[in-house]
């Protein structure tokens, strides 16, 4: 049967890597589509409480977040502070900030703007109530208490 035996070297041919960039580009596009840019650098701790009766926050482009919690920088104390965008703020800054957020969305989207409250679980309700009062004044009625998934009785 020597007739069929191939003569010469029996080396494995080199794997072609010319398609590797294409594969990586595909991965890039996947990540570009499924993820969103990290918008802010957190200056406050936001370990959120758990809840079970929760809904998914749809359309992230229409959500503006208010962060409330004790500052990450220990030098600033442990009292809860408000963070809007990238800086600390006072409750009196909220109406202007909401107007600015509204301004940056198209007219048709404005009624669906939601304010997500990302609040640290040890925060006292006083500051949260103040923020809610400001939101009511300026007409931002849709709010969402962002929470983690889990039993609320463990909080």
């Amino acid at each position, binding site marked *: 049967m020597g007739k069929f035996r191939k003569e010469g070297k029996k080396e494995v041919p080199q794997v072609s890597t010319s398609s590797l960039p294409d594969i990586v580009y595909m991965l*890039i596009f996947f*990540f570009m589509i499924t993820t969103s840019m990290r918008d802010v650098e957190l200056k406050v701790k936001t370990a959120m409480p758990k809840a079970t009766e929760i809904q998914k926050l749809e359309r992230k482009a229409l959500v503006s977040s208010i962060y409330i919690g004790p500052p990450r920088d220990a030098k600033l104390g442990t009292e809860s502070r408000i963070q809007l965008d990238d800086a600390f703020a006072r409750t009196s800054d909220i109406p202007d900030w909401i107007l600015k957020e509204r301004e940056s969305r198209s007219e048709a989207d404005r009624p669906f703007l939601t304010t997500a409250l990302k609040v640290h679980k040890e925060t006292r309700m006083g500051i949260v109530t103040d923020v809610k009062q400001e939101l009511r004044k300026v007409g931002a009625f*849709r709010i969402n208490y962002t929470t983690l998934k889990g039993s609320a009785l463990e909080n």
Partner: protein
Amino acid sequence: MARKVPEINSSSQADIAFLLLCFFLMTTSMDVDYGITRRLPPPVEQNDEDVKVKERNVMNVKVNKSDKLLVNGRPSDITLLKDEAKRFMTPRPNDETAPEVETKHFDLVGDVLMSKGVISLQNDRGTSYAMYISVQNELARAFNELKEEMAWQKFHKHLDQLSEEQTKAINEAVPVRVSEAEPVEIGASN
């Protein structure tokens, strides 16, 4: 004679693409946010008259600054709150102490016996946010269970299996009636 342009070496293209990939992996986040969605009431006018609500129609839930619960003047616990709220909101036409009931007609579900009860939630400025969310969550759970029962009774389906119109009808027949009192100091006693 045209000069022959040497072919560009493309072996580094993969490295460049990897760099881009790393950039996107680091600057973006894929986390999905979940939360309890609520609608705030419009601000109250100063000269607005108080709406009188009958006492039997209101369930008062108060949380003080040490996260203790008071339901209708009696101390309670967060683990009992869901059942208390559910019992309160279930229409009971023959019970004098239960909230009043009325019959309303809705599309799809037909005539429904509705309770006129309202759950009033009041918290202190010192209440912790975790407790507040727990209370909100337990109240929402009570209403969701009532909706689930109604969905099963009217359509023989679970709440998450209903069509959009059916969900809307159920939401109208079982409205979430939780009102948050205007903020006041409740104090630490009780």
